[in-house]
């Protein structure tokens, strides 16, 4: 019996598929990592915020500040602010929008470029953080950030959360709730928006093709704030 070329190729493909299918991937997917594993550049955490669903509430702000133990001294000019609501209004038409703004977790963060001690850094999975052990409080990063996302702690603090050390003389900003992300949870703002807000925020891995955030960014229009700066932000907006 002779096997013609077409049939040989067809059977060959099926056989190769069967051999590869069980438990073997040609490209390794990013997995949820164990606490002993370092953050990996295979992942890039990000947020997608649909501001057409963003209502006039501030549950994301209060949830963030509750989770991270950020409390003010009643001095809005100097109190730390990790996330804030920004109101936009078109002067011509009067059309008003509101959106939450926080550290945009840039792929090319200006705050990291200007830091003289290397305290401001980007973790392998794209989360931009401040190493307060080496921060000298110079506030160059505060000036460099185009989003005004960083705050300086002016006063002695007490009652910090165990997962979120904060102290006088250092700069801080949204950590994307890195302590929760490392436990496999979503940031506090996203959880609060899902529960009590307009379900406007989606958190996920921008590199994971099966993640909801990746699918939506691929199929729906979205924008980066100050895209002209080419910082490749990890936080994207829809309806802006």
């Amino acid at each position: 019996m002779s096997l013609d070329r077409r049939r040989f190729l067809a059977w060959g493909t099926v056989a190769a598929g069967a051999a590869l299918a069980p438990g073997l991937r040609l490209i390794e997917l990013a997995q949820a990592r164990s606490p002993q594993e370092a953050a990996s550049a295979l992942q890039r955490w990000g947020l997608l915020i649909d501001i057409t669903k963003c209502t006039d509430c501030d549950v994301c702000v209060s949830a963030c500040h509750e989770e991270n133990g950020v409390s003010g001294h009643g001095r809005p000019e100097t109190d730390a602010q990790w996330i804030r609501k920004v109101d936009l209004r078109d002067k011509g038409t009067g059309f008003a929008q509101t959106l939450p703004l926080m550290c945009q977790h840039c792929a090319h963060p200006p705050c990291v470029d200007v830091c003289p001690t290397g305290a401001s850094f980007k973790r392998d999975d794209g989360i931009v953080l401040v190493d307060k052990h080496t921060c000298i409080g110079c506030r160059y990063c505060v000036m460099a950030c185009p989003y005004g996302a960083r705050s300086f702690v002016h006063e002695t603090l007490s009652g910090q959360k165990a997962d979120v050390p904060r102290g006088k003389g250092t700069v801080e900003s949204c950590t994307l709730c890195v302590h929760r992300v490392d436990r496999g949870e979503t940031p506090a703002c996203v959880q609060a928006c899902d529960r009590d807000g307009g379900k406007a925020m989606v958190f996920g891995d921008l590199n994971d093709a099966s993640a909801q955030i990746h699918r939506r960014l691929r199929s729906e229009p979205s924008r980066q704030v100050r895209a002209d700066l080419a910082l490749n932000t990890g936080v994207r907006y829809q309806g802006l």
Partner: protein
Amino acid sequence: MMRLAAAVLAAVLSIAHTADAQDEGARGVALPTIKIERGEACVVPTDEMRREHMTLLLHQRDRTLRQGVRETRLSLKKCVDCHASRATGSVLGKDGFCASCHRYAAVKIDCFECHTPLRQSGAAGTSGQPGTPR
């Protein structure tokens, strides 16, 4: 003359002896309170921990913050969980595990200007329910 010198020497020696006996009381700094609240043994042998804890914590802090490795074995949070005082729930204060030893050694640490000195797990120190040894 020799007799006088011997008498003076004897007097000096007796005074010195009395001073020696009072030495414990006259020491300016109280000995540290090393009270282990929880657990049978530390994660590292005590001798090594006494000499090396600052180095261990320094490495752990960089690995946790910069790489996201959250091992619990050498974490500051776990130190506080075991060593926080049962009465105050803190490692600081007069008899606090960290504070009393560092006061004795005249070392100023600033870990707890940012990190909380209070025990977290089960809040055993504050609820009056002492933790069981693990």
